[in-house]
């Protein structure tokens, strides 16, 4: 009975108690695997990460030897040293998110609204959006290296059109990294927006037109606000992994002005063996993302639409 009360079941009648007790046990059985999984593979590691972020080197010890401590100064130190990289990561992720939105929204709109009713076409277009997942993430990113290489067709054409100055290159530039991020996370933008627009009743658009709104005004006042939950989901699914991504920066960047925070954390953990700094940066990244996401969802005003 106390368990049911704690769960807010509020089963007052004593006759109902055994049944609701059984039901609450069923709740725990169903939740069990997920809870165990989350505790073992998320809560415990995050706790370990938080602890590690406060460790100090063992005095006189070898490289990579640390001991438990509450050395909070690790935080100001790490931030002071790496804030440009952190800032750049957020900047690149923002650029990639905006680019993915600009490319992805029309795609989602075309599939959900224009192809509505033509099931076969819609299915094929959706398969095309998801098709890249059939090849490895790394392979696709390496392919972008070829696409943007100095002797590639793209660069040749851009030179020929005088859009790219003589001697300038695309590979190993911030542009290449943002391109890679945009490309790799595009499906995560398209699919939630598609799901949102798929549910949009096209009669709303007719009602807009009927009430003197031009197609552009109808889009601005009806379609866009109604697709906002999808847009918010899509931008989050793009932005969050993009901030922490290190594969694109490592494969398409140049190690000077393209370094992202994921690369630094990777290097601190596995090359420099500076576990406390790596952990500190991970925690800072996590906190910053949570803060930004919270503010973003509040500002988008999508709580009630979701």
């Amino acid at each position: 009975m106390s368990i049911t009360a704690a769960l807010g079941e509020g089963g007052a009648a004593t006759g109902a108690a055994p049944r609701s007790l059984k039901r609450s046990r069923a709740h725990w059985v169903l939740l069990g695997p997920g809870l165990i999984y989350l505790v073992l593979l998320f809560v415990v590691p995050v706790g370990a990460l938080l602890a590690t972020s406060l460790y100090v080197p063992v005095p006189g010890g070898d490289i990579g030897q640390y001991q438990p401590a509450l050395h909070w100064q690790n935080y100001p130190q790490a931030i002071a040293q790496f804030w440009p990289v952190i800032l750049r990561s957020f900047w690149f992720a923002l650029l990639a998110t905006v680019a993915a939105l600009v490319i992805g929204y029309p795609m989602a709109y075309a599939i959900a609204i224009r192809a509505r009713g033509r099931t076969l076409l819609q299915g094929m277009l959706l398969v095309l959006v998801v098709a890249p997942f059939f090849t490895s993430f790394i392979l696709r990113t390496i392919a972008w290296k070829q696409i943007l290489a100095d002797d590639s067709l793209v660069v040749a054409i851009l030179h020929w059109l005088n859009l790219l100055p003589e001697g300038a290159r695309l590979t190993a530039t911030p542009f290449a990294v943002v391109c890679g991020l945009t490309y790799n996370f595009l499906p995560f933008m398209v699919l939630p927006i598609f799901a949102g627009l798929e549910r949009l009743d096209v009669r709303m658009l007719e009602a807009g037109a009927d009430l003197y709104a031009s197609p552009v005004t109808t889009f601005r006042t009806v379609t866009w606000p109604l697709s906002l939950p999808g847009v918010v989901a899509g931008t989050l699914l793009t932005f969050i992994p993009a901030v922490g991504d290190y594969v694109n920066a490592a494969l398409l960047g140049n190690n000077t002005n393209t370094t992202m925070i994921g690369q630094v954390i990777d290097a601190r953990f596995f090359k420099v063996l500076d576990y406390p700094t790596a952990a500190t940066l991970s925690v800072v990244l996590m906190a910053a993302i949570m803060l930004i996401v919270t503010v973003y969802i509040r500002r988008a005003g999508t709580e009630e639409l979701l």
Partner: protein
Amino acid sequence: MTSTAGTAGSAAPVGDQADSGADLELTDVTKSFGDFVAVDNLSLTVPSGSFFALLGPSGCGKTTTLRMVAGLEQPTSGTIAIGGSDVTGTRAHQRPVNTVFQSYALFPHLSVGDNVAFGLRRSGKSEIARRVADGLDLVELGHLADRKPGQLSGGQQQRVALARALVNRPSVLLLDEPLGALDLKLRRQMQLELKRIQTEVGLTFIHVTHDQEEAMTMADTVAVMNRGRIEQMGTPAELYELPRTAFVANFLGQSNLVPGTVVDRVTKSGLLAVDVSGTRILVPEVRSVRSSGGVLVGVRPEKLRILVGDQEPTPAENVLGPGTVTDVSFMGVSTQYQVEVRGLGTFGVFAQNLLGGSTVATGAEVRLAWSVDFTFALDGADAPDEGTVDLDDEP
């Protein structure tokens, strides 16, 4: 009044001069979807300020006609004019027309007030707040302006949809089965409400419905549509008392139709004599579509009188029979009889319960009599059961 320019959308064509409604004129309008002709060479004039109903079964082209007037579909050929100016080819947002959609199509992300203000904002009207308040007061929902459509009942949503269209004072207001989703009681109430509002605002209303009772209750003029064409147009009473096709006779109310042949034409009294399976039936010539050859003789069930035993008809009555009463349903205000007349089929009879109780029992031998003046005759080539409402087919 209508502009073909103004793609920017903010320049809506509706002016305040539309306040009293405007004539709507469709000329030779045809709409085909591939091989299917939804609307077939339709011409129609709806005078300003009238309540006009387009009545027909689903698939008869009435909604397509409405959508063409709204600008949501373009006719394959023909022209549409509102208030004398040709609007064919202009798009929905450029027409001084508003629609109450069957599904209401309220914007779920906007409050009731913002839904109602939507059209006013687009057309840059002044005093939006006051107009919205007036519009909501008209449908008695002033107190719900801040709610979202999802928080309202079906009937309330329907009234918001009506207010959202009405506040713009369109030249023509289109209603696409607006009461279809409401339950019977609410529908009756809203029918009266709509009629009251139409009289109050004086706009031209075009109401599309498959419900003949709804059309008859509300509209000044009803056009019965079938297979993309208008079968007959007139006041509800005209259509009911003098249908000109079997479709109208059966779709609007019920009719008893029997085939016969014109055998004599009495010019002096203006009557036609029709041979119905050996019985001579008289029809006023003005109430007959044809004055020779094969016809369908018709009479409404409530016009029929049951003659029992040696009861005699008056000289001004037609008589058929004898027949057998096969079914008696007591319905309170009236009793409904089914009378099987050999060689002619089953007749429906509605008898008012003026004396109380049913007097004729199943199995009784009776004759049927009705006034010659209530008899009508249709083209004999019409199928007698065309337009019969199939109850399973009702949406």
